[in-house]
C-alpha cells in the first residue's frame, strides 16, 4: 500500500538530490580558472540531460531490471522505456512508493556520479570526447555497478556486502574512474607549477552548500521511506560531515596557522562521502569517528600522494570521492550493526564479527578493479578513435572559448557596454 508520507519524502529527496548535480557544477566551476568556467559547468550539466534520457530508454533496465543471464552483473532490457515501471504500481524494490518514483530516485544518483568523474578531467578534455566517455561509462561502469550492489540478484549484494547510499556505486566507482581516466588523459600544461587558480570561491561555496543539503536527502532518502532508518541516516550524515569539517580545520591550523574556506568545505564534503555507505548501518558515535578520521586521510592523499605520483586529478574526484568512499565502506565493515538495519546480516568487525568486514573488503576489491579496468578500456579505445585532448594552444586560451565560444562573464568588466 502506498504511503503518502513516504511518497512525499522520496519525491522531495529526489528533487534535492537532483539539485546536487548543478550544485556540483558550480562547486567545480568555482575551483577552476575563469577561462574554463563554462566548460566545467557544461561538463557537469549536460549529464542531467544525457543520463536521464539514457535511464528512461535502457539504463534503468540494465541497472534494476531482472538479472541478465544470472551472473548478477547487469540487468536485462525488459524494463526498457520504463516498460513495467509505473507511477501507479509498486516496483519490485519497495512497497510503499510507486516503482516509477523508485526509478526517479535512482536516476538522480545516476546523474551525479559521472558528473563527479568529470572533475578529474577538467581543463583539457575535448567536450565531444567527454560526451562519448560519459555515455560509455554509464553503460559499462555505472549500470553494472548499480546492478551488482543494489539490483535483484546482484553479485556484490550476494556477498553480503552492504552499501546504504552509494559507497561502491557512486563514490568509489567515480573516484577510481576519475583517477584512471585522468592518468590516461595526461596532466594539464604546467601542472604542478601553477596550480592555484580558483576563480570564484563564493561560487564554490554555493555549490558546496547545495551538495551538503542535498546529501541529507541523498542519504536520508536512501531509506526509501520516511521512517526510523531515514532519521538514523540523516543524523549520521550531519555528525560525520561536521566532524570532518572540524578535523580539516584542525589540520590546517596545525600546519599553517590559518583555516581556509576551501579547506573547511572540502572537509565537509569528504565527511559526507565517508558516511554515505554506512549512514543507515552505523551508530551515531561511529559517524563521529568516521567523519573525524576521513579528513586527515584525504588531506594526505590530496597533498603527498597526488604530488608524489603526479597524476593530475584536477578537481580531486579521486582524492575526495574515491578515497573517502573507500574509507567509508571499510568503516561500514567496522561499525555496522544489524540492530540498526537488518539489511546487514552481520555486525561489523568492531562488534566482533568478521563476516561483514570480509564481505566489504571483497566488494571493495571488485568495485575498484571493475571500475579501473572498464574505465581504462573506455579511455584507451576513445584515444584510438578520436581526439580526446584539446591542443596546447586551446588549453592556454581556455576551453570556454575554444570548445564553446562562450565566456563565463562576457560583459562583467563593465567595459563591454
Amino acid at each position: 500500500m502506498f504511503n503518502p508520507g513516504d511518497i512525499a519524502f522520496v519525491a522531495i529527496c529526489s528533487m534535492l538530490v537532483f539539485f546536487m548535480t548543478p550544485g556540483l557544477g558550480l562547486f567545480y566551476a568555482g575551483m577552476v580558472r575563469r577561462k574554463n568556467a563554462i566548460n566545467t559547468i557544461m561538463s557537469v550539466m549536460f549529464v542531467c540531460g544525457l543520463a536521464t534520457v539514457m535511464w528512461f530508454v535502457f539504463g534503468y533496465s540494465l541497472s534494476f531490471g531482472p538479472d541478465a543471464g544470472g551472473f548478477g552483473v547487469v540487468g536485462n532490457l525488459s524494463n526498457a522505456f520504463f516498460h513495467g515501471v509505473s507511477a501507479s504500481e509498486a516496483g519490485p524494490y519497495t512497497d510503499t512508493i510507486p516503482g516509477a518514483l523508485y526509478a526517479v530516485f535512482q536516476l538522480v544518483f545516476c546523474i551525479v556520479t559521472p558528473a563527479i568523474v568529470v572533475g578529474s578531467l577538467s581543463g583539457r578534455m575535448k567536450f565531444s570526447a567527454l560526451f562519448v566517455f560519459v555515455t560509455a561509462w554509464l553503460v559499462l561502469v555505472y549500470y553494472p555497478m548499480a546492478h551488482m550492489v543494489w539490483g535483484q540478484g546482484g553479485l556484490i549484494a550476494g556477498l553480503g556486502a552492504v552499501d546504504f547510499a552509494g559507497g561502491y556505486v557512486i563514490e568509489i566507482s567515480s573516484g577510481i574512474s576519475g583517477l584512471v581516466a585522468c592518468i590516461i588523459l595526461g596532466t594539464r600544461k604546467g601542472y604542478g607549477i601553477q596550480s592555484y587558480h580558483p576563480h570564484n570561491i563564493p561560487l564554490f561555496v554555493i555549490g558546496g552548500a547545495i551538495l551538503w543539503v542535498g546529501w541529507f536527502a541523498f542519504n536520508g532518502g536512501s531509506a526509501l521511506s520516511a521512517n526510523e532508518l531515514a532519521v538514523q541516516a540523516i543524523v549520521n550524515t550531519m555528525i560525520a560531515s561536521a566532524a570532518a569539517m572540524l578535523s580539516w580545520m584542525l589540520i590546517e591550523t596545525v600546519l599553517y596557522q590559518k583555516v581556509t574556506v576551501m579547506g573547511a568545505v572540502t572537509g565537509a564534503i569528504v565527511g559526507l562521502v565517508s558516511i554515505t555507505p554506512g549512514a543507515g548501518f552505523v551508530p551515531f558515535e561511529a559517524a563521529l569517528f568516521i567523519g573525524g578520521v576521513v579528513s586527515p586521510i584525504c588531506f594526505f592523499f590530496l597533498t603527498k600522494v597526488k604530488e608524489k605520483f603526479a597524476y593530475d586529478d584536477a578537481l580531486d574526484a579521486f582524492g575526495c570521492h574515491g578515497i573517502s568512499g573507500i574509507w567509508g565502506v571499510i568503516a561500514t565493515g567496522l561499525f555496522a550493526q544489524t540492530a540498526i538495519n537488518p539489511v546487514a546480516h552481520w555486525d561489523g568487525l568492531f562488534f566482533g564479527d568478521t563476516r561483514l568486514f570480509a564481505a566489504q573488503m571483497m566488494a571493495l576489491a571488485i568495485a575498484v578493479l571493475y571500475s579501473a579496468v572498464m574505465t581504462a578500456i573506455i579511455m584507451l579505445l576513445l584515444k584510438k578513435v578520436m581526439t580526446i585532448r584539446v591542443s596546447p594552444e586551446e588549453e592556454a586560451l581556455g576551453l570556454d572559448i575554444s570548445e564553446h565560444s562562450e565566456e563565463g562573464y562576457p560583459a562583467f568588466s563593465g567595459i563591454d557596454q
Partner: protein
Amino acid sequence: MKLVEAIIRPEKLEPLKDSFLKADIKGMNVRQILGCGNQHGWIAHNRGSSVMMNMLPKIEIKIVVADDKVEDTVKLIIDTVRTGEIGDGKIFVKPVEECIRIRTGERGDDAL
C-alpha cells in the same frame, strides 16, 4: 604637464584620496593592476597544497599635473603611502604633451 603615475598598495588608496582632498588635488584616475617586484607575495593553501602567489594586487594612480606641481605631488604621495617595507611601490613621471577637457575643449594647464 607631467603624468605622475604611482603604484601603491591597495590599502593605501583611501588615505591617499584623503591627502589629495586636503591638498585640493581633484583630478585623478585609478585602476587595479597586478604587480611584481621585490615583494614576494604570500603563501596560499589550496586543499592542502601550499602555493606561492607571486603577482600581487596593486593600485595604479594617474594624475596629470602642471610641471611646477610635480615635486609636491610626488612628495605628498611618498609621505602618505610609505610604510618602509618591501612592496611600497614606485612612482613614474612621464611627459604629457597636451591635455584637453572634453566638455569645454579647453587645452593645456587650464584643462587640468
